């Protein structure tokens, strides 16, 4: 009897210790607007030599990027991405993205403003954040200033999930101004012709393969390039497969571009693709991630739109070292050749960070 009392007493004590109400916390209310500022930056070193023995080397500031995001209400939010890019004579300022977005539900979200075109997975995954991407530089097909595919898009974009069960499908669909007279830029100040650009992406993230995403994209527009006397119809189709679990990381994209003169009816076809593989080594606190990438662009000789795109082939081999939570050091070797002729070998290093 005495033993039972002791046990019961101890049980009651333990219940009191483990199950008693604890003082409640003070709960902060949700405030609108709620502005947050993030940023990205990188500093680079390069050393290159071409086939004629010409050498170049030096340090270079990468883009300094500010990202502003603010929840304006339970449904509306705003995103802005500002970049500051070093040139030989100045720092060029750019509004890379400016989006006002309404979230109705998981199946329908609507944004208006300036976007990164959803014709490429890389373009919408990494934007201008060097720290986010594994490698130092973007693939040639989607490099900043590229004419190959439209990098920016000004207009309205709807996105959301597609009811598809375990397939995990989704869509991005946009209508906008298309390319400007300078075809490397979007139509920021308005559409230069009466033809709107259309961009649609459909993708799937199947539950059974966690980390896998596959997608198809389509883009169409009528271009009025400053170097051409006729308008040109443009169609771009692309496909991608991404496995981003870092054990390994596999990113592959393929682009097919067709340009048809509206007056001449002549069609030029170009292609580009890249395949990138990386693997985060689990030892040494999982800081090291070696990577490699091969990429190729095959430009139609008589393309009426491209003025500075060439057949390019490049491969690179490098390593990313996450030296701190928000700082990464990257080093890579690159070999690239133009039109199967002149080539460039180079060593590149970068420290990239986010804040």
């Amino acid at each position: 009897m005495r033993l039972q009392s002791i046990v019961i007493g101890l049980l009651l004590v333990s219940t009191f210790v483990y199950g008693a109400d604890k003082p409640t916390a003070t709960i902060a209310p949700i405030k609108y607007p709620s502005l947050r500022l993030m940023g990205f930056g990188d500093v680079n070193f390069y050393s290159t030599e071409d086939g004629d023995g010409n050498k170049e080397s030096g340090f270079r500031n990468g883009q300094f990027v500010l990202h502003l995001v603010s929840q304006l209400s339970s449904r509306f939010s705003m995103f802005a991405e500002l970049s500051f890019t070093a040139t030989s004579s100045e720092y060029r300022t750019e509004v890379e993205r400016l989006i006002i977005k309404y979230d109705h539900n998981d199946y329908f979200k609507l944004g208006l403003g300036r976007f990164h075109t959803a014709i490429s997975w890389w373009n919408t995954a990494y934007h201008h954040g060097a720290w986010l991407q594994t490698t130092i530089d973007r693939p040639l097909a989607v490099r900043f200033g590229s004419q190959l595919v439209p990098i920016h898009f000004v207009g309205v974009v709807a996105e959301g999930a597609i009811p598809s069960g375990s397939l995990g499908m989704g869509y991005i669909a946009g209508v906008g101004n298309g390319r400007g007279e300078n075809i490397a830029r979007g139509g920021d100040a308005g559409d230069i012709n009466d033809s709107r650009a259309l961009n649609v992406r459909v993708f799937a993230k199947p539950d059974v393969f966690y980390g896998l995403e596959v997608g198809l994209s389509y883009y169409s527009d009528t271009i009025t390039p400053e170097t051409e006397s006729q308008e040109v119809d443009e169609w771009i189709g692309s496909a991608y497969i991404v496995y981003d679990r870092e054990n390994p990381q596999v990113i592959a994209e393929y682009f097919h571009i067709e340009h048809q003169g509206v007056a001449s009816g002549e069609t030029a076809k170009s292609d580009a693709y890249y395949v990138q593989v990386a693997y985060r080594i689990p030892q040494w606190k999982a800081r090291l991630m070696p990577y490699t990438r091969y990429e190729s662009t095959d430009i139609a000789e008589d393309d009426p739109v491209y003025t500075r795109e060439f057949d390019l082939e490049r491969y690179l081999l490098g390593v990313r070292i996450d030296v701190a939570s928000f700082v990464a050091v990257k080093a890579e070797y690159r070999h690239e050749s133009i039109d199967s002729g002149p080539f460039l070998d180079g060593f590149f290093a970068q420290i990239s960070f986010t804040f």
Partner: protein
Amino acid sequence: MAAIVCVAVLFSASVAQAASIAVVVHPSVEVDDLTFAEFRKIVLGDRQFWPGGKRITLIVRAPVADERTILLERVYKMSEAQYRQHWVAKVFRAEIASGPRVVLSNEEAVDLVGVIDGAIAIVGSEDVPEGLKVLKIDGLLPGEENYPLDR
């Protein structure tokens, strides 16, 4: 002998109460059961609304907490570094305006879940007060056999 029994009783009580992680939601959430895949989409930020249209507010424990460790290992399958990069990328891609709300204790988590419409949190099952809804995951409650979030 009495001391041994007391120690055994206390030990078994503590083990039983710390055995499971519960997924709790605000009582107004019109969902009782999630598949593991659906739960993963919510904690990844891929799914941001409940079926009735309420926005999901995700509440997670700060680093080192058992509940966060289980979430990272079993659901995210990410390290802390990958988890941080995931949310930085999510905000940068304009998919969400902010990452999960981080709390320092289960008590803070259940307090927030109790007052924020649409909130969801992962807490020790012993810290779930009356009035909060505990979701089934794959049809199972904390403590049931094969529950995917057992410690």
